[in-house]
């Protein structure tokens, strides 16, 4: 084990292996951030749909979740990357006009975003369903419309309840970004393996990556716990204390 390898130069590029890993980490985090936005927005919409009284909205939401939960992530990557352009000529034409890195980047964001949306919708739904039924009825009784009831009564509390599982989903998303390696995206895992293959220093490369992922996990945990405490409603839900592992 000799960490000094990290400071050696990459043979074909400028910069050290450490910088190569850092650029991979940057891809990992940027892809995860964009995918999280898609997942959060779409997941919230689907989660809300599945708690309404509209039968078709519920069915559509359920179908989405089942579809994206029952196909392995790597297969979903291949479907977006290979199958979709092969089936739809318009997508093919657009993809050909992109440079490969952009194509991989966009595919990773879309794939991870839609995949994670299914899981977030599960969390949002369970958060809403965890609220007493009286809350919804009270909203209606006060003359709020359904949309207003969700906006002012149900969602503000539901989101707070599901912060801990959402933290796990955020962590899962960051970890799942490694699967984008399968379509060649130059994220952290790609750079780690590349370093191992070119220097034969697999232990150093993998140890560096492992350490990075553990630090990200710890940071994400702390940040979400901080947010949970900051937005806790006094006297309503115990903010950030207890729970955990």
């Amino acid at each position, binding site marked *: 084990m000799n960490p000094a390898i990290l400071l050696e130069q990459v043979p074909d590029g400028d910069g050290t292996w450490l910088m190569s890993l850092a650029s991979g980490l940057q891809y990992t985090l940027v892809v995860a951030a964009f995918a999280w936005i898609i997942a959060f927005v779409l997941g919230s919409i689907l989660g809300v749909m599945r708690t309404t009284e509209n039968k078709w909205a519920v069915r559509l939401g359920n179908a989405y979740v089942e579809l994206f*939960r029952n196909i*392995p992530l790597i297969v979903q990557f*291949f479907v977006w990357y290979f199958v979709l352009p092969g089936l739809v000529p318009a997508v093919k034409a657009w993809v050909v006009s992109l440079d490969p890195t952009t194509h991989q980047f966009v595919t990773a964001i879309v794939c991870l975003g839609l995949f994670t949306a299914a899981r977030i919708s599960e969390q949002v739904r369970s958060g809403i369903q965890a609220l007493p039924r009286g809350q919804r009825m009270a909203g209606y009784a006060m003359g709020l419309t359904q949309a207003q009831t969700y906006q002012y009564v149900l969602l503000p509390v539901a989101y707070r309840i599901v912060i801990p599982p959402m933290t796990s989903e955020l962590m899962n998303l960051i970890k799942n970004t*490694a*699967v984008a*390696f399968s379509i060649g995206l130059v994220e952290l895992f790609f750079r780690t393996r590349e370093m191992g293959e070119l220097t034969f220093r697999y232990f150093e490369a993998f140890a560096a990556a*492992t350490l990075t*992922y553990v630090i990200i996990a710890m940071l994400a945990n702390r940040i979400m716990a901080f947010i949970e405490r900051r937005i806790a409603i006094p006297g309503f839900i115990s903010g950030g204390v207890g729970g955990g592992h």
Partner: protein
Amino acid sequence: MGELDFSIIGRTLPYLWKGLQYTLQLTVVAAIGGIIWGTLLAMARLSSYKVLSLAAAGYVNLMRSVPLLLVIFWFYFLSPVLLQWATGADRPPQIGADRSAYITFILFEGAYFCEIMRAGIQSIPRGQIGAAYAVGLDYWRSMQLIILPQAFRNMLPVLLTQTIILFQDVSLVSLLNVTDFVGAAGKVAQRDSRLVEMYLFVAITYFVMCFGLSLGVKALQKRIAIVR
């Protein structure tokens, strides 16, 4: 890519079936091994020996914060070294990615099964273990006869759901060039330039299998729930 030609699937079906067999075999072995390892970890985490519970917690948290793909590659490199150490051989044994995957998945999924079993053990009222001790059973006997059977029963749907996730996770070994279901399909797809047909087939097959299994788990959950 030209016209779609789904006859490729029929022609390569025996090869794909071999891949799927490997996937299923790895899933079953890893599920059984992972549940045993996870149960031991859960008992360690709940132990009153601080060192033991901290070590187990550290192991579980480490496994859960690292991507599975990274763990698969770790064990691919580490397994020969570990086996050499365990058997005292002169040189590291040659062990392919298809076999190191068994070690990987047992050890990795064990961390997830541990959390499930821990919740299962904790769902049993404390009085039960007190009663077990009172009738003269020691720790291992009371775990074996009183606590674990109930914990398993309570957690069976969750354990099975995790096994479905494991079944999907196995597909990642294809990135180590292992011929699992996805790996087999990928090899045919590359050789004959039939990526669309093959990956579509793989996606549909997985969906049908996993959806079917999850419906089964739901039915089981209902049956178990009524009895209590």
